């Protein structure tokens, strides 16, 4: 690991206590280049420091976390976002992911796992926590009855393959990528490919149902 540059991390969260907690948990495995407690200072700070990974709270006082992602996407596409929060409504989490975050982990995550997740996002991979996997399965599962579905531009984007579904299910059951690879007799790289492909579908799908799912869930 020597000689390898540490991932540069920026923390956005409105709770100071939590920011310092994350800072100490990440320890010396990453370089924390800045912090912010709201949308506007976060946008300024990120633009100034250009970190590899932004740890982003889903809920911020001055608008959701997705406002930060959206603001940075145009000017600095190389900055990657990892959503991190305690417990959120699925629609908010999906919104941040659809805005462009590379993953979502819950605050119950251990320090070592968080470092691992940051490295993964810095390397361009997607990071799915069990909860996000559950949300995504739920979102794609509520399929409209055939015929009622709005015509989509790319039908391939609107549904998950059997394999992607299997991978997500195992993530939701608490399996690590390594354990999933062993369970399904595939390589870890293939697991990562599946997860990235799910993320792509999640972000690019124009699926009528997926967009509407969030609002329906709130009503139900």
């Amino acid at each position, binding site marked *: 690991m020597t000689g390898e540059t540490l991932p540069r991390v920026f923390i956005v969260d409105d709770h100071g206590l939590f920011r310092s907690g994350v800072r100490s948990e990440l320890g010396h495995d990453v370089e924390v280049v800045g912090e912010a407690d709201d949308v506007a200072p976060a946008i300024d700070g990120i633009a100034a420091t250009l970190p590899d990974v932004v740890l982003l709270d889903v809920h911020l006082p001055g608008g959701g976390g997705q406002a930060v992602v959206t603001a940075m996407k145009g000017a600095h596409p190389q900055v990657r976002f990892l959503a991190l929060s305690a417990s959120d409504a699925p629609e908010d989490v999906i919104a941040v992911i659809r805005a462009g975050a590379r993953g979502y982990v819950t605050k119950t995550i*251990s320090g070592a796992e968080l470092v691992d997740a940051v490295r993964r996002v810095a390397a361009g991979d997607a990071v799915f926590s*069990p909860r996000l*996997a*559950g949300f995504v399965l*739920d979102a794609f*599962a509520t399929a409209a009855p055939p015929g009622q579905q709005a015509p989509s531009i790319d039908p391939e984007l609107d549904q998950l393959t059997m394999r992607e579904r299997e991978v997500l299910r195992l993530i939701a*059951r*608490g399996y690590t990528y390594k354990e999933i690879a062993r369970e399904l007799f595939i390589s870890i790289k293939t697991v990562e490919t599946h997860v990235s492909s799910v993320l792509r579908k999640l972000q690019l799908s124009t699926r009528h149902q997926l967009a509407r799912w969030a609002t329906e869930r709130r009503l*139900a």
Partner: protein
Amino acid sequence: MPPWQAARTEDGQWPGHRYFGRGPRRWGPWHQGEPLRRAREDRLVGGVAAGLAARMGRDVTTVRIIFVVAAVLSGGFLAAAYVVAWMLIPLEGTEGNSARKAMADRRGLALAAGYGSLLIIVRIMISVFNVGWLSSFLWPLALGGAGLILIWRNAAEDERAMLRGLVQPFLGLTTNSRWTGFVIRLVVAVILLAGGVAALQSAHENIALLQPLAGVALLISAIVVLLGPWWLRIARDLAVERQARVRAEERADIAARVHDSVLQTLALIQRRADQPQQVIALARAQERELRSWLFDGRPPGSIDDQAMTLADGIRLIQQEVEAQHGVAVEAVTVGDCALDEDLAALLAAAREATVNAVKWSGATVVSLFAEVEPNEVSVFVRDRGKGFDPAAVPADRKGLAESVRARMARRGGIANVRSAPGEGTEVSLSMPRAATTRSQA
């Protein structure tokens, strides 16, 4: 896809079996593809009629009546066929029939052959004495009797008990003290029988149509007089046996529930003996729960009265376990549906598995994943704790064995435990959905 095709077969069970476990009143119209099995619950003799009725989706009583009528019309041959079917069709929930076992039982075969040949000799003697009408009954009698001997010698204990009940009145001749009653009945029956036979015999010469009818009536009343009390006793025994089974199931249920709540709490109290405040809180909570069960009839550990949907129930388990044991539970639910009794049992099993994982695995976080699919609901409880060797757990250990597995099996669900030392444990539970909750997927 029909529900039984979605069943898991890795535990070596034929998928249809879990539907057999759900009680005799749930048969569908025609269970295509399920193998024919003799019924265990509903049977009167060998369970063949009940098994057939289940398989064809007909009423058991109708099948039995048709069978008895056909047996009489066929001169008893159908009765012999019944015995053969008894030998050939495996009992519900098992593979392998008694015929295969009987083929290896040399002494039994010899006995059966001896008995059969004895009857055939009797038949020859009868034909010599020219009482032709009797002889036609002897073939099925020989065949059926020989079959019964083989079944008796090779059947499992419960089958034997059944047979013992059937031959009781004849064994009762030597062991029973109610001699006089039997002798009186025997005398009356012999007189009636003789009258009936005489009436039938004289029917040839007489053209009066009433006479054979009277003969048949006399024969029937002879049989009723002779066997009536015994039939009544069988019916009574059957009811008693059914009650006993219900009581045993109830006891198992209570044991599982007491284990879930009282024993768990006692174990916790022992572990936290150095924290008086927590011990008091635990004892108080347990007292409240036990009282509500004993006096208000609300079962401890019941989730159904508080939670409305499956996702609510999972959330409740998460909150409770985190509060009671201080271990994080990562709960994920995909889909949702209303609870019924089956799914409440699934939740209770899931709670038990979660508490088990929290208490014994040593892991700091336990994953709880529930997915509602169109035909079934599955729950996975996984920890990355110390794990255990499933083969090394003693059979009498309550925990997973009774509480989770039996609880699921009683409702037609499946429970699997996967674990290895050092690799953590995963309990997977799946419960087929009843039609009532299925519509609102």
